[in-house]
């Protein structure tokens, strides 16, 4: 029996050295963003590759105010919370019915959700824009929340159903004998033991909705209603020359994302790659 080490593609010390070098190169853009965001403009222009002469933490405050980040972060948070809430409730209800209940047309409805996984947003963007224009929803937060919820549902339903399918039916049988209703079984028995999948669905839906660029870019032109992604786009085009402030704004947005990622790494990786693996 050989030790586990020798099965790696390169000898151990060499492999670790190679991986560390690769990672330093790979993550250098992010490191550079953090370093440069704390430099003064003149210092940065002199040598974009250098270290700060002194730390200019006032960059962050200035970027925060200039880009009105507080306001746009709140809008993003509102959009994300409402969308995630809707996706979690609607997808768990639908997945429960697909997995544990029987009714006419069930398989057809389940198959219907796959069109949402196959069609690119571009297939219905024009139709959706006109639909929203007619309904008077353009330039409202609904014009982003509604499509983001609908777009997140198919994958969330797929993941939830796959999870519910693994739960033993004996769980419900005894509850049913004691007179529990279908909804009570869903709410008091199925959901409490499914927190793992619910956390996965919540985290990756939240990340996707928070990061969304195309929909608010198309639907929301009112400056005040823009989420953080499209408001930063406007900020970066307006203040092209304020390089260090721009990088400071990016740093402010990136840092909480990294924290969320390192806390929920497993769920986020699972959610983001599940779209591919379940197809």
């Amino acid at each position, binding site marked *: 029996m*050989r030790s586990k080490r*020798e*099965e*790696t*593609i390169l000898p151990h010390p060499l*492999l670790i050295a190679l*991986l560390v070098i690769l*990672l330093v190169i*790979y*993550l250098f*853009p992010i490191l550079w963003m953090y370093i440069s965001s704390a430099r003064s403009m003149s210092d940065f222009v002199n040598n974009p*590759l250098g270290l700060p002469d002194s730390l200019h933490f006032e960059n962050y405050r200035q970027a925060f105010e200039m880009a009105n980040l507080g306001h746009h972060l709140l809008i993003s948070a509102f959009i994300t919370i409402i969308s995630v809430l809707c996706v979690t409730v*609607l997808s768990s*209800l*639908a997945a*429960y019915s*697909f997995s544990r*209940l*029987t*009714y*006419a*047309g069930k398989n057809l*409805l389940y198959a*219907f*959700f796959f069109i*949402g996984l196959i069609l*690119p947003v*571009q*297939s*219905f*963007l*024009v*139709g*959706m*824009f*006109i639909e929203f224009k007619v309904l008077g929803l353009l330039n409202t937060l609904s014009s982003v929340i509604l499509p983001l*919820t*609908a*777009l997140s*549902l198919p994958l969330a339903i797929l993941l939830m159903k796959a999870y519910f399918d693994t739960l033993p039916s004996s769980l419900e049988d005894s509850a049913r004998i004691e007179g529990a209703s279908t909804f009570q079984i869903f709410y008091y028995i199925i959901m409490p033991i499914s927190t793992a999948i619910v956390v996965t669905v919540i985290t990756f839906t939240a990340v996707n909705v928070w*990061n969304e*660029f195309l929909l608010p*870019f*198309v639907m929301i032109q009112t400056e005040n209603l823009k989420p*953080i*992604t499209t408001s*930063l*786009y406007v900020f*970066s085009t307006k203040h092209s020359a304020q*390089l260090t402030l*721009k990088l400071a704004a990016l740093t402010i*947005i990136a840092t909480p*994302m*990294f924290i*969320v*990622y390192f806390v929920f*790494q497993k769920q*986020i990786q699972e959610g983001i790659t599940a779209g*591919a*693996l379940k197809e």
Partner: protein
Amino acid sequence: MQKNNWYILYALPAVILVTALIALPTIFTVLFSFTEWQRFNITGFGTLRHYARALKDLTLGKAFVHNFLYILFTIFLEVGAGLILAGLVNHLKHSIVYRGLFFSPLILPSIVVGVLWRQIYAAEGGLLNTIIIALGGKAVSWLDQPYTMISVSIVSGWLFAGYFMTIFYSGLSRISRSVIESAIIDGATPFQVYTKIELPLIKNLIMLSLLIVTTGGFKGFDLFQIMLRRDPMESGIVLPTLLVRIFFENQDIGYGSAISMILTAVVVLIMVIISLINKAVGEVEEY
């Protein structure tokens, strides 16, 4: 299993949302592509004019070429790099640390990635040119022709190499230990084990990745819009940015819808072709 047709109510809210926001708008877009428009007013129906116009549109042709280049580059920079990275950490203890870090750029919103890399590629004062000049080279306009597509593709590779690494790693970790151990006893080197035994076993995942990259290559909008902005020279125009330009800047709904449908047809066609190839390859191997 309980049977009661009223249970459909559990699925109904989700069905209604997907119908109203995905299915119906898709049908509208199909109809719009055969409709005559005066800005936002319908003036006639049943025209093939928009599709005829698409056939002669040089910018559309340019966008197609760019999309194909993007797909070609990202197959190497995303899937190829993902295979190499997965191979490097395969069978490595604590590989989760490396996988987690290579995956981490994907967590960033595209606006952060796009603005950051625009700054890295900037012709004057950009990080890349600063390094090149320090090494004695000449500054290059990375976001202009002929470098535009490779520059954007590199950012895409930077984002997604860790994603494909994670997909391949999850496949590799499911391969039974006995297969690998017997190969090692037979004297195979770890490199031979990876390329000759393990990679063929995750062939399905590699095919799936090619499918994701090829169809994804026609959907990418954010990086192109954020890094190239209005792109007046059209040096990096692709189908999704062309669509947004035609629809939202020129307010040409009919033609925009036709471009939508062409894009949809291409994506669906690629899915069908790749799944047919996958099936054919699978059948050959059964003999």
